[in-house]
């Protein structure tokens, strides 16, 4: 098959899984005839009809909650939240119902469901089409959180999520939706495990750790560094709950210098956990303090949203700091 973008990889994987397993249904706002506002569910309505491709009312609580009720009854819903910023009206359903069902029922009930959401910024969407809310999900026991950055990872991880017996929050960086194309594996059962970081570049001077949308800027920065004769070791975490502590701690223990890159607001973010864990676990291996390059502690702005994002220059400056420390 031809090379596809990330959003096409989503559509293709949904199609393959729906064809494979009748229990898989898609639900959300405009996922039907419209094919989703990003076309992540394009053509599915024509192929599978209104029972399996459900246009929901405009309510994220209805989407996430109903997905849970369908999952409990034997379906495998893949719910779409139109933008990650709009998960909040459904937040109670996600944290109070979905995340806690297995636990509170003593394992009598579980929630095999996926909640997909386009996430992150860089598309001139202002506050409410640009946020990176992953920290809220990672802090919530009972949820798995995945944030791919390539079409192939998107397929491999989405398939794993759809076949998972636990609820998965699947965050798709919208500015990467069409930024690159890849040939997807032919294997109809191609799956990737959670908690395994991808090494995007082998290196020995500094470890760069990122995920999702910020991988784009991180790779730009690492390319620039390589030019300058600096050798970065680049990790793409791919999943945040669980996250690959082993790969991170090994790399940092070996290299001794690390820069964490995420566009989510700096304070109490997922990267705070990574930074804390590194210093708690391999303190003596650190040749310089962990550096975080983050989104700023403001609502996501409309003007200058490119400056808001941690760009290559900010990453390079942080790398300089840890190298010169």
């Amino acid at each position, binding site marked *: 098959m031809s090379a596809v973008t990330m959003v096409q990889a989503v559509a293709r994987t949904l199609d393959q899984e729906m064809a494979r397993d009748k229990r898989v249904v898609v639900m959300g706002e405009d996922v039907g005839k419209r094919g989703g506002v990003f076309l992540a569910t394009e053509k599915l309505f024509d192929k599978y009809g209104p029972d399996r491709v459900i246009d929901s009312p405009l309510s994220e609580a209805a989407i996430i909650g109903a997905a849970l*009720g369908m999952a409990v009854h034997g379906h495998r819903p893949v719910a779409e939240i139109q933008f990650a910023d709009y998960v909040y009206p459904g937040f109670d359903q996600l944290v109070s119902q979905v995340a806690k069902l297995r636990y509170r029922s*003593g394992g009598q009930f579980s929630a095999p469901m996926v909640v997909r959401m386009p996430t992150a910024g860089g598309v001139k969407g202002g506050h409410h089409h640009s946020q990176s809310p992953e920290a809220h999900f990672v802090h919530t026991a009972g949820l798995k959180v995945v944030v791919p950055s390539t079409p192939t990872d998107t397929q491999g991880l989405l398939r794993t999520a759809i076949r998972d017996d636990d609820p998965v929050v699947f965050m798709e960086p919208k500015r990467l939706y069409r930024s690159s194309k890849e040939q997807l594996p032919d294997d109809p059962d191609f799956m990737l495990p959670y908690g395994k970081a991808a090494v995007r570049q082998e290196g020995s001077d500094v470890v760069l750790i990122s995920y999702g949308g910020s991988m784009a800027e991180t790779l730009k920065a690492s390319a620039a560094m390589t030019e300058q004769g600096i050798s970065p070791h680049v990790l793409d975490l791919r999943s945040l709950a669980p996250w690959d502590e082993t790969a991170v701690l090994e790399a940092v223990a070996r290299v001794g210098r690390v820069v964490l890159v995420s566009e989510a607001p700096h304070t109490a973010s997922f990267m705070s956990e990574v930074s804390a864990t590194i210093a708690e676990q391999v303190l003596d291996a650190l040749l310089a303090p962990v550096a975080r390059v983050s989104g700023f502690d403001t609502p996501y702005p409309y003007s200058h949203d490119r400056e808001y994002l941690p760009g290559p220059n900010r990453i390079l400056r942080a790398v300089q700091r840890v190298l010169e420390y």
Partner: protein
Amino acid sequence: QRFYRDMLRARIADDRFGRLQRQGRVSFVAPSAGHEAAQVGVAHAVQAGKDWLYPYYRDVGLCLAIGIPLVEIVGQNLATLADPARGRQMPYHAGSAKLNTFTMASPIASHIPPATGTAISQKIDGKGEVTICTFGDGATSEGDWHAGVNFAGAQGAPIVFVCENNGYAISVDLKRQTGSDTVHQKAHAYGMPGYYVDGMDVLAAYYVMKEVVARAREGVGPALVELVVYRYGGHSSADDDSRYRPREEVALWRGRDPLGRFRRFLEKRGLWDDAAEAAANAELEEEFTAAVKAAEEAGPIPLETMFEDVLAEMPERLRQQRDELLGRER
């Protein structure tokens, strides 16, 4: 008689749990006295084990009447291994996968969207199953309630929403809860029929529910049933209802007691008498005593289970946290 017996059983359980609470053996109770006719009427209108139930914390009578073993309810309230949910939640949060009864959660109305999802799933499967979802009058104000009921209306899902309207959400009466005089009229907003029923008359509750459930089963779509009841006790063992309810009001409603009314009905027809009453009481009190004994003998919840059932497989981090607490860390 089955109706009466189930109501009596609920009343006795309510009374006994209250005593256990005052003895400090149960940490919390949500009195259900006054709700029995509604709960028993609903229970007998469903096909237990086939239909799905999304009850709420005050539904002890409903859970018992559809067949959840008393020992499981007691086990849940005492948090022993007799609880199929392994003591994970505070008392009055039952659930049973065996009986398709969704494990309760405390956040009011948060079970409504999931109930709708189950009904949508049932509609797709087309096996003639129905979902019953109960809640109080206060629950109707939550956004999640609206989201769930509206989605059911849009999908024509086979679900019956049942409001046990006791006129209060803790201390807040219906006037301050909503601008509408009744709950059933809210059905109009979702294009579904609404029914207004004396929820302290078990026959009325039963026959209306039977009819409405049958229609949902035929595929007519969802409905909203308002069962007017009253809670005799405080909102919970933590409440002092004298702060907000005049005693005369409570007395007035007690006069309409569903057990008393139905007992008189049965006695008129010679189907019940003092002897039957005494026998039933003795037997049910005995059953409860035995259930408490059995629940306690099932044993306490082991500490390590605190770390289980978060996900199908225990995450590595959590395993480390468990080992640390249990002093197993290497």
